[in-house]
């Protein structure tokens, strides 16, 4: 396995407020890589720094041995796609228009979409099961459907790496599983490297090949779910008491929380 993304000692954050300090790790090609950590630990900031939305003050991020800030934005948009958390739509675009925007990195200015672009957009709607929504307005969809459409847009970019920031927040358990199953399928069948920020530790445990546990802007630990999701680590980072069991079927760690008066 080769490293597709390599993070070299980055310090990153927003105007005079460093959030991440001295981060160093790498992501392998084809991996389903999860980023977890408490609120404010810097998960979203890390994802933004990895995907070039945020320039680190120090250190650099390499994609296939190249500094991502040395790659043109358009070129990188054909390699990386990003599904943001809580996208707000101020204009009533249709689902089809939104998905087609994923082709922007491939289309020259003032040129119409080619039949190939249309086919790629349709293909990603088929994969995400959103073809039936094509003519609906994005604002009229449920949050589950909207998330699927955003993934379809990302897919039509034909990315090698897909970044997702809490793709399952605000979704019911059925949609959570549906979305993560789809992402897993993309990861395995389409060989897309997935880098995902997840809030839910049990979902992270079930789906991710490796986890990075962030604590106060630093890497606390990186490894497989069973190495990361131990009650000691969780107690230390989340400051909360938990019991770690195993999922009876998959044997992955399963976290149970404990109410205060029962401790």
């Amino acid at each position, binding site marked *: 396995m080769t490293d597709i993304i390599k993070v070299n000692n980055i310090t990153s954050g927003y105007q005079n407020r460093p959030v991440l300090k001295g981060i160093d790790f790498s992501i392998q090609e084809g991996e389903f890589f999860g980023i977890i950590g408490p609120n404010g630990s810097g998960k979203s900031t890390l994802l*933004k720094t990895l*995907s*070039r*939305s945020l320039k680190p003050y120090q250190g650099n991020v390499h994609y296939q041995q190249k500094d991502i800030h040395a790659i*043109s*934005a*358009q*070129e*990188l*948009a*054909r390699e*990386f*796609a*990003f599904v*943001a958390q809580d*996208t*707000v*739509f*101020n*204009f*009533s*675009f*249709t689902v089809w*228009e*939104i998905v087609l*925007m*994923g082709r*922007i*990195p491939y*289309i020259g*200015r*003032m040129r119409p979409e080619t039949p190939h672009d249309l086919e790629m957009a349709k293909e990603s709607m088929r994969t995400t099961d959103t073809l039936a929504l094509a003519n609906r307005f994005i*604002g009229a969809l449920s949050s589950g459907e909207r998330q699927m459409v955003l993934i379809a847009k990302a897919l039509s*970019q034909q990315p090698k790496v897909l970044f997702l920031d809490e793709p399952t927040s605000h979704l019911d358990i059925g949609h959570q599983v549906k979305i993560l199953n789809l992402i897993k399928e993309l990861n395995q069948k389409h060989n897309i490297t997935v880098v995902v920020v997840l809030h839910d530790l049990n979902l992270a445990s079930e789906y991710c090949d490796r986890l990075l546990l962030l604590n106060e802007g630093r890497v606390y630990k990186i490894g497989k779910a069973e190495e990361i999701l131990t009650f000691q680590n969780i107690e230390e980072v989340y400051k909360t008491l938990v019991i770690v069991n195993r999922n009876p079927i998959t044997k992955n760690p399963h976290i149970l929380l404990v109410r205060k008066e029962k401790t």
Partner: protein
Amino acid sequence: MKSRKILLLYLLLLGAAATFGLCFGPVKISILELLSDENSAILHLRMMRVILGLVAGAGLAVAGVIFQGILRNALAEPYVLGVSSGAGLGAVLALFFNLSVKSLPIVAFAGAILAMIIVYQLAKINGQVSTQGLILSGVIVGAVFSSLLLFFVSISPNEAMHGITWWLLGSLEAWDIKLLVAVVILVSIGIGVATFFSRDLNAISLGEEEAGHLGINVPLVKKILFVVASLITGSIVCVCGIIGFVGLIIPHAIRAVCGSDHRLVLPASALSAGAFLIFADTLGRTIMPPVEVPIGVITALIGGPIFIILLRRKQRSPL
């Protein structure tokens, strides 16, 4: 193609409005009579008005669409944002200090950009620009610039300037032919540049980060489009004063009919806003002769209520 047909329809609408604008006025003249020699002076006058109406309408609508797209706010518009008043103050100052007519668009453009920067910075709190903040600071900056404009008009030693109320109410009577030609050129270039970036505008209206992930150089595109919209507004204000709400009403109506794709919204808004202004101007000239109702009054009477409806709807749901 569907969008071609829609544009053709708007072109026909524009043609109808132009014919209406040529034939109607204090005196009603049929097309055939209009072409005769004795009416050539009237034809010339009305032709100028129609051309200015088209350019001003198209330009203001395109400026409105640009502001709405990059600020991701359907209520943004040159007048509401105070940009028109900034341009008006610039133009009046240029006249006050006896600068050449040629420099007018440049000074007005400077005033427009200045107003835009002030409004944007005032509205920005913690890096976020809210709808309410933007509208409030736009209205206030607009009011301050308008009163300065009136002040300079009133103290001007140039007697001719005292009669200029049209800076505030708008008028399609071109007062300088060379200026009109310059404005036609500037506005056309502006519309061309905006069209060139229409797909970028689509992406940016989804969100700046979103557009960045689609490979668009957002800070650069934003700067270019801000400059283009201010340049268009500045040039138009030089020849026809402050005409409000056109950039709001027309793009909104077009979006309701044609959707949000800027590749269609831009040209469709330009054509129909041109038709709208020609129509509104003709109405203003014919409704109560010999008094001419200033075009800014007509657009405000139509646009004001629409603005309030939109604002209330926006407050109820952010979508």
